[in-house]
């Protein structure tokens, strides 16, 4: 082959090899693990057990519990990130002094590792010494310290706040970028037609934002479902497993229950369940590709 014909393959191959190494092999490996007995405390039993691991995972308590926790967390987190992103984007798109200021700092939390944002927020929400409690007490909003992280509902909320702080900025920046390409003439037209603020937003802004918003929603859903760092540093899954989302469960299955067979079966089930999401994701990319 001529160098010119080799060129595409030569440039794509390095990337393809790395990605394939960490995609194809893990899948095969997981498949193998998942149909064998593999508990670290019984190092000699590695019998073929068929679908037993799958059955045990699905009928086990943790699976449904963590699915539920994951769904609750993801729903709250995605909605919050989208609203925060949209609100901030609309603010940033104004010609205001405040917008200019906000513009400088908006991306800052995005640069901060999730682990660190978890550490910071856990310390802020601390039930005994947190600064939030301190501020609320000084301003007289509460009479005594509130143990935010000891109640299932508030513990989830704390995690969502930390998540939004870290994930929101990216959504804002994406949405601002989308807002900036809306032709101003459309607003003028809407104005002439007598449309109010809300109608202009509803019929001009929103349709333009739709593809980007879709992308943000899908991306954020996947990020929220895959959350692990926040749980690790903020709650350790507690209280009462309220924040034990699926990533934490997979970690527990491997590092605390030492059951690799279960871990692998869980991985594959998760993969299949994510297929629905994958389809949506793919379709979004296809739409992109077509333009």
């Amino acid at each position, binding site marked *: 082959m001529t160098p010119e014909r080799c060129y595409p393959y030569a440039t794509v191959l390095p990337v393809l090899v790395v990605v394939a190494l960490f995609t194809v092999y893990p899948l095969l490996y997981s498949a193998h693990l998942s149909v064998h007995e593999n508990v*670290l*405390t019984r*190092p000699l039993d590695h019998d073929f057990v068929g679908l037993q691991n799958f059955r045990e995972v699905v009928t086990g308590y943790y699976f449904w519990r963590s699915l539920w926790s994951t769904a609750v967390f993801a729903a709250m987190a995605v909605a919050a990130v989208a609203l925060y992103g949209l609100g901030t984007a609309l603010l940033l798109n104004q010609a205001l002094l405040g917008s200019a200021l906000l513009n400088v700092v908006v991306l800052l939390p995005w640069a901060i590792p999730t682990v660190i944002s978890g550490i910071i927020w856990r310390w802020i929400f601390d039930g005994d010494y947190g600064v939030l409690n301190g501020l609320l007490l000084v301003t007289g909003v509460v009479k005594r310290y509130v143990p935010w992280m000891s109640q299932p509902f508030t513990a989830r909320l704390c995690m969502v706040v930390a998540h939004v702080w870290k994930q929101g900025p990216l959504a804002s920046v994406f949405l601002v970028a989308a807002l900036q390409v809306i032709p101003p003439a459309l607003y003028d037209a809407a104005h002439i037609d007598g449309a109010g603020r809300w109608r202009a937003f509803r019929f001009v802004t929103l349709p333009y934002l739709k593809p980007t918003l879709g992308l943000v929603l899908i991306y954020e859903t996947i990020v929220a479902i895959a959350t692990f760092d926040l749980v690790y540093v903020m709650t*350790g899954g507690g*209280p009462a497993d309220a924040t034990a989302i699926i990533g934490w469960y997979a970690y527990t299955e491997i590092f605390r229950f030492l059951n690799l067979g279960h871990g692998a079966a869980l991985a594959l089930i998760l993969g299949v369940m994510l297929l629905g999401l994958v389809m949506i994701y793919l379709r979004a990319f296809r739409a992109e590709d077509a333009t």
Partner: protein
Amino acid sequence: MIHLTRARRLSVLALALTLLLAGDPPPAHAQGGPVTLNLVSWSYGVEIVRDNVAKFQQRYPGVTVNYSDFSWGTYHDAMVARFVGRTPTDVLYASDHWLQEWAAAGWIIPIDEPFPQVRQYLAEYSPFVREALTYKGRIYGTPYYADTFIFVYNADHLQRAGISAPPSTLEELTRQAEAIKAKGIAEFPIVLGWGQQDPFSIESFTSLVFAQRNGSLFDKDFNPVFKTPGSAADKVVTWAADALGGKKIMSPTSLQAANLDQIRSLQSGAATFGIVPSYTLAVLNDPGQTQLAGKFKIALMPGETRATVGFIRFYAISAQVPRRGKDAMTAAWSFLDYFGGKIDGEYRITKRWSLDKGLGFAQTALFADKEIRAAFGKWADVDMLQKQAQLARAKDGMTPYYGTWDVYSRAELHKAYLGQQKPAETLANMARKWEELKAKEK
């Protein structure tokens, strides 16, 4: 044109960076002497460990110790990763929670076969220590410290509430806490270290169970007896749920608290009662740390039997050592003997921990040691400590799957405490999980 060359230079630089920076530094465990021992511990008294290590190296000039420490709450997971990844690990801290799990997985080795001299120490240990150090008839280490869970109270609070003696049963504890709350002395008089992340939490819970009538979780054949209605566990869980959600005499932070949070609550006078490993009392009564020093007293665990959990943390040898050969084994044993055994006829390191930090010991005879009595006397009623230690039992249900059950149970118990499910449901779930794990063990 400037642009073009700059772009090229940048891309060459980028490539060079990738290749250059990706090289790794030499491994951290480079040989410093004939034998290097990698020591791993959880983070506690790190400066004392370092000092002990330095003294050990002076005595054994051929051995170099490479030391790292991890947080207590994530120690188990960190060690699992090390064992599975075969990260150089030779001597390590271990706990009776995980002894059987790690032994069954082949990560730590029994030491009484290669080093039968370890047996000379056994007779000196409390019975619960002997039991907790043994798996399938073999001994797995030498003690770092052995301690008991004790019930502590703020005597000042009791006096102000007009209470003359600490509670001797759970019912009395409830009444006293209600009185203290009613007088406005403490909003939540009881604080426990029941955070889901703290391995102490199951021991603190078990202590309360042991103190009640028929206080056991398992029978001799490892059948769960806690699920029967009216069992000791049933009583404790029901009491805790009521104290937390009903009477509001237990601090809600108990469910996030680790041992240290409990200390802070008691030290600040925010709470009156706690259940802690006994060395914690040394911290509570340390005048350098709190104005309330001296106010904290020990009482026997409230319940009919007054029993409690005695636990052992010990030095173990990892399965990597025999593979490294005879010299490494000898060095590892020297370490275990130096740290957990006698040096020149004396338990020097054990005593140091007791004198400096108030840590308990496996060797019952040390209760008679003058220095220790004097040191402990500064922060506790030593006779009372000894009395509670004599009533201590090893945790029951010690099996390779105890660790798994422990993690599962911590969350189940939380649900009952928070009122999300009935105590009976929690206990039934815990029993079901146990049976499931037991059935697999064959």
